[in-house]
């Protein structure tokens, strides 16, 4: 399969201390890679390095054969869509206007969005199922709807690679699954590569093709979820004892209560 992005021996440090230590990974078209690991292990930093928001100390990010850090912002934005954690802006744009911002990389300096850009934005909204809310101010949406609107905005960019920073943060039980299943569907149907960071190993099991388990700025282990998410490795990385429970559709990870008593 076609390689979308390869991160090659990437290291990043902030103020002398190493935050990322020679990271290498590859994502091909239509596959979902999940970054899993405890707080502060470098998931967000890695996503920002891939999106050239941070400059690595060494190593490189190659997207579609091009070095991400040598591209101009509009060139990179046509290849990479970035979905930040849902937030509130002091300016409550309508949901459609927010999604329309995804078209910016396709516009000239003085150009305004055209009818075609509106069509693409509306299509992105219908992919995530928010068509009915397009005229609603963005800040009046629920947490899950906001996250979906930001995903629609990234889809409107028509990227080859989608980066998501903890897309399930602050979402309720149902919305977590809704958002993640939409992300996986987009990857499959449009042949987009996805890298996302998650907190819950069970989400990683359900929705990813490859799991990269991170610890202290390095990749501890990487591969299909049933090989990476094991009792030993999870216990090592998260420093709690867990059990892995098999069920009819697969398996899940549950903390053992004796850790906390």
């Amino acid at each position, binding site marked *: 399969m076609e390689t979308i992005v390869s991160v090659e021996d990437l290291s990043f440090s902030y103020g002398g201390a190493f935050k990322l230590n020679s990271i290498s990974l590859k994502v091909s078209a239509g596959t979902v890679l999940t970054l899993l690991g405890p707080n502060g292990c470098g998931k967000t930093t890695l996503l920002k390095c891939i999106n050239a928001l941070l400059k690595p100390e060494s190593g490189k990010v190659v997207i579609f054969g091009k070095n991400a850090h040598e591209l101009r*912002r*509009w060139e990179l934005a046509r290849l990479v869509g970035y979905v930040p954690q849902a937030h509130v*802006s002091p*300016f409550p744009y309508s949901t459609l206007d927010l999604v329309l911002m995804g078209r*910016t990389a396709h516009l000239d*300096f003085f150009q305004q969005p055209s009818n075609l850009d509106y069509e693409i934005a509306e299509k992105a909204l219908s992919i995530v199922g928010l068509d009915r809310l397009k005229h609603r101010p963005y800040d009046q949406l629920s947490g899950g709807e906001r996250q979906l609107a930001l995903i629609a905005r990234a889809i409107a960019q028509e990227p080859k690679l989608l980066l998501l920073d903890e897309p399930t943060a602050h979402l309720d039980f149902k919305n977590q699954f809704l958002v993640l299943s939409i992300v996986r569907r987009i990857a499959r149907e449009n042949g987009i590569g996805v890298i996302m960071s998650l907190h819950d190993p069970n989400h990683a099991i359900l929705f990813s093709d490859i799991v990269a388990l991170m610890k202290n700025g390095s990749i501890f282990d990487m591969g299909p979820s049933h090989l990476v998410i094991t009792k030993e490795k999870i216990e090592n990385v998260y420093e709690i004892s867990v059990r892995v429970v098999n069920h009819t559709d697969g398996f899940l990870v549950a903390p053992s209560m004796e850790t906390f008593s």
Partner: protein
Amino acid sequence: MPHQRKSIFFLLLLLPLPVFLLSLTVGSYHIPFEEVLAILVGGIDPHPSFSQTQIYRDVIFMIRLPRILLSLLGGIALSVSGASLQSVFKNPLVDSYILGLSAGAGLGAALAIAFLPNFVGLTQLSAFSFSFLAFMLTYFVARDRGQASTVSLVLAGVIVTALFSAALSMIKFFTSPEKLSSVVYWLMGSMAVSGWDEVLQSGPLILFAFLIIGLMRWRLNVLSMGDEEAKSLGINVERDRLVILLTTTLMVSSFVSVSGIIGWVGLVIPHLVRMLMGTPDNRIVIPISASLGGVFLLLADDVARSLTSYELPVGVITTIIGAPFFLYLLRRRGGSTWRQ
């Protein structure tokens, strides 16, 4: 745009026209509305003879028209710059006055008027340079780890404005008596002494800056999402922000250098526009801020020159309207604006 919003949009966009005609009739020398229309349509008589119409003509073309045009231009400069600065800083509580740009331009212009030879463009250049300097000071005082919060920007602006105002007072002190009167007149913040010279000195610069910002109105939306998101969406944030800041400074300093410091317009008008139009979309907010800003300053000036037998400084009127409006905004937002 929804249908109803479209009608309001065009209504507000055309509002300056009737206000313009009305303003030509206002003043200590009353000119009937029919006469104003007849003179505007007829233009300047090639063979002037002394008549009532000739006096009307002189009043309209020599005194009122330049003053009205300057009010419209000033309204555009102050409110469009306010809307742009609010977007660039993701901060609804800033404008050129609050960030110290106006005080900087005031100091630069006063220096030029008091000490430099009377040379075309020199006052404007000095006002522009000091205005940008004042803004840079505000920004670097407020900045902490690459971010400037709402509160620290406003506070830094207060400090920089105080500093530049003090320097301005010093200049008044050291100015030679024959130049002092022109500095003081200009400082009051008024279009009272303005004629065609002032319109020609500031008009082209203001309109040029307005054109650039108007063309960048979509980018302003994206910039208002914050640096990282704007970058992810394909914007060269540092470059685009610099273009906006330079054009903003150009329009504000050009106006201040001919009319002195007039506050609050840039804060009141963009907010009013967002409320009226029900959207923060700069593709709507920028053009409507220009037309409503022009109307607001023009009406304020009409009041300033007709309320009493003396001229009131128009800045007094914009402050009397603007300051309570600012308080209302703070209350309505329940203080949450300050915590961002």
